[in-house]
């Protein structure tokens, strides 16, 4: 038995041999190797995905330790993407891990995101997200969106070449418009509105004020970030194996997480097909 087969014996039964082979030949690109991206990378390796491209220009810092599964004190100030390579190859030696240490922008997005089967957007920057999902659509590749929002909320939603576009579903001001500096500011402003809205959901008001004033970081709790990352990897898994009856949540259908609600994770579709990103 090969190392690959021995490693993934316990998957078989939940997934078939044929599906495992599909994963083995699959390519996934994950943008961001932080709170959501890190656990997503690890899940993909432990499911037996054959090839991954990790894109992140950042290094680890102490405040990542509370939730980021690739982080450890021994890799503080080390590249997140390079650390991902080491961790993933120690889980699945056969996995081909490609690493790119850049920040995604309009100029490099097409080159970075081409030649893959699924793109996962695990960034924390709203402008980067617009660029990722626009480019994915243009390239004809499915892309997965995620959110992690105080206090206990999050979301996962997939977009495909045939689905309504990300910016339309999210009621973004940038839909079908050029990403001028002014537009980028408008997009970034949505995150301030999300902070203010989260107070109505139980986040501390002093935190939200501090965030809007630029004094406090986005509060991110470990269970939420990791649940969202696992659910994002599950959406990727569904898009890759294409099992009849196991449908991915394709926008505007949203996998909504709220650990403070009785329905902790539920799949929801808005009546008019539109979400207001400030409330997600």
């Amino acid at each position, binding site marked *: 038995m090969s190392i690959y087969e021995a490693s993934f014996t316990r998957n078989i039964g939940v997934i078939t041999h044929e599906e495992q082979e599909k994963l083995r030949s699959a390519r996934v690109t994950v943008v961001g190797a932080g709170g959501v991206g890190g656990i997503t990378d690890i899940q993909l390796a*432990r*499911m037996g995905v054959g090839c991954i491209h990790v894109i992140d220009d950042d290094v680890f810092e102490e405040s990542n330790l509370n939730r980021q599964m690739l982080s450890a004190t021994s890799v503080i100030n080390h590249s997140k993407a390079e650390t991902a390579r080491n961790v993933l190859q120690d889980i699945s030696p056969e996995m081909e891990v490609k690493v790119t240490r850049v920040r995604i922008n309009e100029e490099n997005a097409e080159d970075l995101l081409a030649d893959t089967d699924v793109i996962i957007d695990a960034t924390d920057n709203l402008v980067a997200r617009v660029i990722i999902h626009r480019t994915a659509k243009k390239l004809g590749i499915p892309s997965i969106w995620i959110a992690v929002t105080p206090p206990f909320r999050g979301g996962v939603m997939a977009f495909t070449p045939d689905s309504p576009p990300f910016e339309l579903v999210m009621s973004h001001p940038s839909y079908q418009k050029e990403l001028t500096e002014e537009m980028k500011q408008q997009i970034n402003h949505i995150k301030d509105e999300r902070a203010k809205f989260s107070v109505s959901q139980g986040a501390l008001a002093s935190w939200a004020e501090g965030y809007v004033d630029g004094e406090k970081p986005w509060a991110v709790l470990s269970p939420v970030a990791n649940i969202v990352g696992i659910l994002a990897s599950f959406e990727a898994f569904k898009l890759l194996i294409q099992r009849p009856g196991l449908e991915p949540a394709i926008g505007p259908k949203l996998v909504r997480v709220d650990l403070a609600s009785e329905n902790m994770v539920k799949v929801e579709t808005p009546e008019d097909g539109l979400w207001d990103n400030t409330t997600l």
Partner: protein
Amino acid sequence: MIQHLEQESFYKEMVKKNIGVYSEQEQERLKNAKVIIFGLGGVGGMEAILCARMGIGHVTGVDPDEFDISNLNRQMLSSIDGIGRPKARMAEELLKNINLFISLKMVQENVDEHNVKQLIHGHDLVLEAVDDMPSRVIIHRTAREMGIPSVGMSGSPPTRGFVSSFFPDGIPYEEALNLPGMGKKLTDLELREEIAEVKKARAWYSVKLGAPEAWARDFCEGRAGWIITPVRAHLLSLFSFHEAVQILTGREPLARAPKGILIDLDLTTPVRVSPPPIGGWDYSTL
């Protein structure tokens, strides 16, 4: 003194992003908390990592096993490098590398009637993440006797799970889950066998929901392991851990027994909190 200051500032930086959801006072409670985790495999290994990252001050882990290659698909403490090494030792190394100042006690032992009290003594909360039914009963029963809350879980194919929090003044584990042998010591081998049989019933129930019949047969005859993907194992860890944090910070957990968190990724509400059906939970369906 310098060491102490370093410790303070490291801790503050590590948990910085928790603040806003939890308050400084709640974080302080987590820092002073002592948690024991039974099982350092698919569910418990991830729970141990989550405890360290969240800033929980002391973690005890109990597991008799060494890592095997078939653990790699779901066990967060496992890696190619760690194959053949005790899970308890790997947990110690990996958790120390997350929080330099965490207090740890990693025990390479099997939990049973003879050592369970001694192991639980001195902790504020029990996280149960073992895979055999008699051990589950022993752990939750003893935690209750000792006045300590315990969070329990169960996972089944294809992608189903159950999490519930048990309190000393609440419904007992065996009663909530309709298990045989209430009040009897599990030194009785026949009773042990009867409780272990529940897992075989769970395998056959899983077949109704899409697990292969050939697997259930092999499992019941001891020729195959319990099938489990990382998605399910880690969702169980995360929902169990969230219950633990709610309890330790003094908030209300979502699933105070007999309520349970039900996971089934095939449903349109993949995770929900639910009261038990009339007559209590039927463990063979969980």
